[in-house]
């Protein structure tokens, strides 16, 4: 087997029963993004197969297609030699594919036993037979040696215990292939150890595992084969023995750097605009200290769950439990609400634009002027002409493509929606702009425009904190990059010294 440029791995004997899962030409498109493109590879029966890639490389999407959460637009999945196209998770489970993922789907108000037996509750006539239900649940849990009180409410369990429950449900319903989607991302070390043990036991029993992760130590500990995806394409499938951490990282980030031009936006960095000292919060970060000057773009790198968005939220006044010092323009401040943050000239383009950035039911114009509306009003009456003038100005500057200012935000493409969120904060004339994954789920054209805009803003003297999971983006724009891991700063790398390889190693915690 060798690395192919676009996933041209030629299977030797495709329909041999020792192949548990075969992906052939899988393509999946989401509005505005091509998540997977012509992905083909195979997973041997009884193996633990790692699926690696950067955030957004398409690894979770592939897992979800197998588990029936998503449906592929093109291509074929074969399960033990049989064509397999699950359109719903329960179909996949009936065919023997289970999934353990972060977004746990349980009825939290019901007990462990009720959740495990929900599909077919044991009953005598119309009456639920509790004893039978508890027996059944206990035997399901015993099958994976998990010790849990089946009478407890699922809402009271830890995330680790809930994952056990997912595995028990999958195995109990006869899953022969289980997809683990970053199962340890929200587990403590101790819980993770328990999960590893369980996975080892499952393997002994011949269950095939697909392990979606970008944590190197776990991959080397658990898996025997590794498939790397990059930008939705298959890059390589190789036995773990043929790889080392460096090689996997290289495969994951192997994008040519030349496609991004590390611009020197030529801004002379000015006064310090924002300084954070010893910021900590139970939300998931500790002792964060850094500063951003006017005209500077400071990058923030880290894996999912490293505490980047949580830090941003705390600076923007959204985390009441955060402690530490924030200094804006040389003055120590206490920020308790987004409103106070805005008054200090801070803006936040949040990670999830649909949930936190936009009111989808309102017009594009109303979204753009949302944060500055009082300043556009005389005696509370919105001056429509001025509002529209502002809208037109930012639509032009950001090249928002909507059929009119009044187009509903819900009808715009991902890139244009993101531009609306950016426009909202540009209109507010922020001096400190925190951008959390500003190009996630955005098409290539809009991405380039957003990049140009960030450089432009810095040149105008705005202090930018750029949180991104795309290392090329950080290397392209940031003057220096702060790396977070497990809620702490583990490094600060100036632009000239930063490489994708170095950053990835810092993020993943490998030497």
């Amino acid at each position, binding site marked *: 087997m060798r690395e192919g440029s676009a996933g041209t791995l030629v299977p030797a004997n495709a329909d041999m029963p020792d192949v548990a899962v075969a992906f052939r030409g899988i393509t999946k498109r989401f509005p505005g993004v091509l998540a997977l493109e012509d992905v083909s590879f195979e997973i041997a029966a009884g193996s633990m197969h790692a699926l690696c890639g950067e955030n957004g490389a398409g690894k979770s999407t592939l897992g979800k297609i197998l588990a029936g959460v998503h449906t592929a637009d093109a291509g074929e999945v074969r399960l033990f030699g049989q064509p397999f196209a699950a359109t719903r998770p329960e179909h996949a489970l009936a065919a023997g594919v289970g999934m353990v993922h972060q977004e746990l789907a349980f009825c939290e108000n019901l007990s462990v036993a009720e959740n495990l037996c929900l599909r077919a509750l044991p009953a005598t006539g119309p009456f639920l037979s509790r004893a039978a239900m508890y027996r059944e649940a206990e035997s399901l849990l015993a099958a994976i040696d998990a010790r849990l009180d089946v009478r407890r409410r699922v809402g009271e369990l830890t995330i680790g215990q809930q994952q056990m429950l997912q595995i028990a449900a999958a195995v109990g319903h006869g899953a022969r292939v289980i997809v683990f989607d970053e199962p340890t991302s929200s587990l403590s070390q101790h819980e993770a150890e328990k999960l590893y043990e369980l996975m080892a036991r499952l393997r002994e029993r011949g269950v095939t595992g697909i392990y979606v992760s970008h944590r190197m130590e776990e991959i080397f500990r658990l898996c025997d084969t590794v498939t790397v995806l990059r930008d939705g394409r298959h890059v390589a499938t190789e036995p773990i023995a043929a790889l080392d951490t460096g090689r996997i990282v290289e495969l994951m980030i192997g994008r040519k750097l030349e496609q991004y031009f590390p611009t020197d936006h030529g801004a002379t960095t000015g006064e310090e605009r924002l300084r954070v000292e010893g910021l900590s919060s139970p939300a998931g970060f500790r002792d964060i200290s850094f500063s951003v000057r006017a005209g500077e773009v400071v990058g923030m790198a880290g894996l999912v769950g490293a505490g980047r968005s949580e830090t941003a939220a705390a600076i923007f006044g959204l985390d009441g439990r955060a402690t530490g010092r924030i200094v804006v323009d040389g003055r120590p401040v206490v920020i308790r609400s*987004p*409103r106070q943050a805005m008054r200090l000239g801070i803006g936040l383009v949040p990670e999830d634009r649909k949930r*936190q*950035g936009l009111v*989808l039911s309102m017009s594009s114009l109303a979204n753009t002027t*949302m944060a500055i*509306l009082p300043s556009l009003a005389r005696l509370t009456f*919105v001056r429509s002409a001025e509002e529209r003038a502002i809208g037109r100005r930012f639509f032009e500057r950001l090249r928002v493509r909507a059929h009119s200012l009044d187009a509903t935000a819900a009808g715009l*493409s991902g890139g244009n929606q993101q531009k609306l969120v950016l426009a909202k904060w540009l209109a507010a004339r922020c001096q400190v702009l925190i951008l959390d994954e500003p190009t996630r789920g955005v098409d290539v054209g809009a991405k380039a425009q957003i990049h140009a805009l960030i450089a432009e803003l810095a040149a105008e003297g705005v202090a930018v904190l750029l949180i991104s999971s795309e290392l090329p983006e950080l290397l392209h724009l940031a003057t220096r990059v702060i790396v977070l891991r497990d809620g702490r700063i583990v490094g600060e790398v100036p632009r000239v010294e930063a490489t994708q390889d170095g950053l990835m190693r810092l993020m993943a915690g490998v030497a």
Partner: protein
Amino acid sequence: MTLRKVARTGMSILKRAIGTQQAGLVFVIVLLGVLLALTAGSHLDPRTGQSVHNFYNLHTLLQTATDASFFAIMAVGATVVIISGGIDLSVGSIYALAGVTTAMVLRSVAPDSAVTVVLLATTVSLGIGLICGVLNGVMVTGLGVHPFIITLGTMWVVRGIAFVSSHAESILVPSSLTAVAKASFGMASSVYPVPLLVMLAVMAIGSVYLTRTVMGRHVFAVGGNPEASRFSGLRLNRITIGVFAISGLTAGLAALLGAAFYGSASCADATGYELYVIAAAVVGGASLSGGRGSAVSATLGALLIVLIRQSIRTMRFDQNYEWIIIGCAIILAVVLDQASSRAALRRLSADAVRR
């Protein structure tokens, strides 16, 4: 203006009207109107001996509008609450409390001049409405309980206060107040257009508030996506208290008008109105999940409900079926509205993909 010009302006107004949110409602109301015109028949006026259409006569039309006006006014307030993502079940009770308090204050103070009577009555009923509304809002935000529960509670509490304080009496209001509510502005003696005019005024003010003011825009934002509103620095609590204050205020105004028009107030007034009010708002296309609605539509929704009731009477259907018909009509109206907005959304996303 030449005839052609007139025709062209007419067409463009028509085109714009068809594109708006109200198009469906207006269509149904017009349809019902045509149906009434064709089927209602006519009778002979005993005094003049002329043939009078059973529905298209000034009295019946005004009576229909008057019937609608009391809860149409509250429906505008309810729409504001519903757009913000909340609900207010207490408006009927606030109406009763504002009504009896006004009547009692007027009875005990007994002012001489008509102007004082009107001013005092206005102050008391609007004041009571406002206070109740603000209390609703403060409890919803302060206690963090769903507005359905809070206003379900205050619905009974407020009605109870009205009951206890009025000793369940029906209290008369001074005739000077009735004279204002029944002013006929020199038209025929038994023509009372004041409730209709107040309803139109409230509709206009509500519409301007929702579409032209900062606060109105904030109501849409909070109802559409509270999370994004918080991320944009909006003061959610203040906005929530504001919408309940508006709802209470409209209940107070409706109570003033009702007490003045009918000449008395009792603690049993407007029982069950909250449901008519919510029905009017949702028939008018307000979404109970927030972010969508209009003052004009809510008023039209109220008119439609009254018109259905009136049709049943005028066309001499069995009145026993009134509730069944109104109930079905409400469900039908909302289903049709949802189907049309889903179609619009599909069209929009198809556009986005093509782009």
